[in-house]
């Protein structure tokens, strides 16, 4: 067992974890943050995506013990985030989700893509999202949602600049 101290969604947290426990299972089972989902448990589907120290990682292939001292943000931690609000509205408007299982991982990945400005073309969007699998939508609504969010955020930036 290990004791880990981290900041989860802005709140300090100290916990005891089994050495082998994944960050995903820790957050879901011990912290009740069930927004992240387990799709494959070997790092290929992206449904478990969370942010560690502001960077997206796959929580199913991260050990809880290994994030001692770090900052973790799950989808629940973006309630007040204005960028995430835009992303969620666009996902809804463009039919970027059906069952919602992949969605928390999707929107966190999209938020990072927008931050790194990797949404210039449909092809680039599709390449950047290739690590997030969706079994429902066929992806076209998701790509549309990303384009919509990109354009809306660019429009808002232009507004602010004026």
């Amino acid at each position: 067992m290990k004791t880990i101290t981290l900041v989860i969604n802005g709140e300090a947290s100290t916990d005891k974890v089994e050495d082998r426990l994944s960050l995903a299972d820790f957050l879901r089972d011990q912290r009740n943050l069930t927004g992240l989902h387990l799709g494959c448990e070997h790092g290929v589907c992206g449904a478990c995506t969370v942010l560690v120290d502001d960077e997206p990682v796959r929580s199913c292939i991260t050990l809880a013990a290994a994030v001692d001292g770090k900052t973790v943000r799950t989808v629940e931690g973006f309630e007040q985030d204005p960028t995430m609000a835009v992303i969620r509205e666009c996902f809804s408007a463009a039919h970027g989700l059906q069952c919602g299982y992949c969605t928390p991982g999707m929107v966190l990945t999209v938020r990072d893509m927008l931050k790194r400005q990797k949404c210039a073309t449909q092809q680039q969007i599709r390449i950047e999202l290739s690590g997030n699998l969706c079994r429902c939508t066929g992806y076209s609504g998701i790509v549309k949602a990303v384009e919509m969010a990109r354009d809306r955020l660019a429009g808002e930036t232009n507004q602010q600049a004026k």
Partner: protein
Amino acid sequence: MKAAATNYYKADSVDHALSLSASLGGMAKYLAGGQSLLPMMNLRLAMPEALIDISGLAALREVRLLENGLFIGAGVTHAMIEDGRVPEYGAGFLQHVAGGIAYRSIRNQGTVGGSLVHADPSADWSTALLALNATAVIRSDAGIRHVPLGTFQTGLMETSLEESEVLLGVLLPILSVRTRWAYRKFCYKVGELAHSLAAVVIDPEHELALAVVGAAADTPYVLPRVSASLRVGLHADAVALPSFTQLVEADLAEGTSHEPASYEFHLHKTIITRAVSEALTK
């Protein structure tokens, strides 16, 4: 699936990592990014008794431009290279390779050293860095030794790293700004491990001309005849000729066990040819 029980240790220095490993009788695996090890643990293909976390070691994240080359610490992540957080090298070769590895969230954790020691012949760095004639820099209690990457990779998922050693980083030779390179992968799905990959690096100023094929054999394979033809100044127009195709076929026949009439052979031939063509038309 869930990983089997294990014991997690966090190293606070390279020396500490080495002594922990020794005290655990070689039953521990080093944990860097964990992007290859943890999937295997979750699938119970790997069940190490102990893990020694070396991901926090600043000493493994050093990047130093030396007189004889660029040293990249084993703990440098693919994302660090993708984002240009290491010195510009080889006219963008490293950055291009790094940006094509798996997915961004993998790249944020996965390390160059981890990939090289995992030694999957379908992975990117093993092939790409071999085309640079890179050297593995290895540390043990006895000190540091250098091993050419071609010798370091000994077989499928095997390296010559001893139990008492840890990979410190790689040393990449100095390249001129006129270096021509190409790096091609064939995947059905973006981000998956490649079914074929070819790396070509040509730098006459430093007498470097190498063509390497990955995912074709137990280790990445330096193509001897193709590399020799690049060394003597193969022209872009000659790539389409049967004389060049025969070189590729002869190299593949010698270095891999794929039947010449097979799909795999044809795939490798195609990817190699495209990479050579691309490098020569730069």
